[in-house]
């Protein structure tokens, strides 16, 4: 019980003190740039607990999810064969290295010209930006599968499908999950950037519009919402990853202990 309490204390003291500090420091603020936190909070409830959430937050999240889904599916279907075939991997490695090093917002102008300013462009940008860590980690994970597992599969005449689904993919999964975790951060950035450059809705669009209208309190609510969404997505993913890789943590402990 006491251990639990001290854990929460350690975890929570910082956010709580920051919010309190902001609250007190801004309490009687007349600055238009830094309105009182109570005012921001009141506006936050007004704006985001109504249809603005459906109008702006939901489209952002749907595009983020769609882009990530495409990146995961493509990353796996391209990454697994490349991980299994050394020649193919070395043949395409330079182009992969080039594309992944390219700062992703650089392709926004051409994406807008080709795909317009609708959801297609945004989903494309998110998918294009997030596929690289997933692809590279999948390739690495598959290449690194212990030959002991593969010898076992061969000796026991395990079918190709089972070899892929029950040996290669699980063996590579710790790295694949790590790649997706990296991709989530990139995806959130591109979600907002694509909306700030060209959009008619979305959280990024909302923040930019509020700034241009000089409704700076509204703008602050958008920033806070983004922070909360980003944090929640990461927490949810980490719980999911932890559960999926429960074997990996236990196994790794025995490996380092031995």
């Amino acid at each position, binding site marked *: 019980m006491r251990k639990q309490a001290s854990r929460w204390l350690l975890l929570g003291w910082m956010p709580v003190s920051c919010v309190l500090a902001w609250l007190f420091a801004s309490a009687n603020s007349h600055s238009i740039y830094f309105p009182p936190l109570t005012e921001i909070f009141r506006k936050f409830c007004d704006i985001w607990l109504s249809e603005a959430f459906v109008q702006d937050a939901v489209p952002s999240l749907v595009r983020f999810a769609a882009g990530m889904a495409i990146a995961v599916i493509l990353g796996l279907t391209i990454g697994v064969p490349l991980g299994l075939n050394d020649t193919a991997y070395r043949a395409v490695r330079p182009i992969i290295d080039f594309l992944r090093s390219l700062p992703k917002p650089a392709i926004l102008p051409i994406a807008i010209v080709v795909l317009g300013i609708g959801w297609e462009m945004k989903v494309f940008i998110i998918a294009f930006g997030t596929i690289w860590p997933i692809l590279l980690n999948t390739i690495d994970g598959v290449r690194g599968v*212990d*030959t*002991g*597992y593969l*010898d*076992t599969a*061969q*000796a*026991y*005449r*395990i*079918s190709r499908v*089972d070899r892929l689904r*029950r*040996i290669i993919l*699980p*063996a590579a*999964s710790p790295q694949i999950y790590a790649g997706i975790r990296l991709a989530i951060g990139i995806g959130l950035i591109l979600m907002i950037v694509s909306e700030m450059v060209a959009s008619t809705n979305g959280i990024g669009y909302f923040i930019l519009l509020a700034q241009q209208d000089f409704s700076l309190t509204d703008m602050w609510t958008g920033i806070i919402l983004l922070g909360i969404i980003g944090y929640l997505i990461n927490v949810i993913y980490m719980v999911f990853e932890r559960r999926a890789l429960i*074997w*990996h943590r*236990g*196994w790794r402990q*025995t*490996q380092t202990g031995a």
Partner: protein
Amino acid sequence: MLEVQSLTKNYGRGPDAIQALNGLTFSVNHGEFVSIVGPSGCGKTTLLKCLSGLISPSSGKVIMNGDVIQGPPAGMALVFQEYTRSLMPWLRVDDNVALPLRGKMPKEQVGPAVEKSLRAVGLGSFMRSYPWELSGGMQQRVALARALAYGPEILLMDEPFASVDAQTRAELEDLTREVHREYGVTIVFVTHDIDEAVYVSDRVVVLTNRPTSVREIVGIDLGSERDQVDTRETGDFAHLRAHVARLLMSLDPAKTHTSPEASRSEV
């Protein structure tokens, strides 16, 4: 049932080629327990990989039930030395044992087959554990159970007990002899431990140093009932052990000169 004919394996080509196996010939009869011993680095694992069809020989052949082996044959199961690299850490014990059975027997038979073989190795109550939650000896039992559930005619074991402690090792040797009898499976057992080879098997194939060939095949006439203490105490056991040890030692003149006891069980 298993015939090895002039088996040769070279790594590389031309003058730099390394000859790992040099014309090995021997055979293993149905239901027999045959050990293969040889000096360290003599290519025992290469031999086993050729026997199992994981690699193909440079010349010569391995024949199982009249068919030349050209890839892992059905009816042959393997127990590897490194259990941590052959048991899947993401699968629980029963799923590890079931994995090779998928698609090879009707679904409703898989469960009972898995349970039966895990019980046979004394792990009936660890079916839902992960392999890495178990001790080394228990993990090797899981590997043995997986091999047995596969229903093989021939069981190949590659230094299976090299990385467990002496006490566990003795238990596993007896367990292996027990399942050999109960399942009527033919066993080819590779080891570097002379005592172990003599204790467990019906015949011992002694290999030479590289390039490896068969030095001698020693019949082990110790009866079918063996006991870790009593059998090892007998004069017959001591003589056989010494005989195999001399075969191995004479290959290494340095050791014979300095001290005859230098190479005890580990060669």
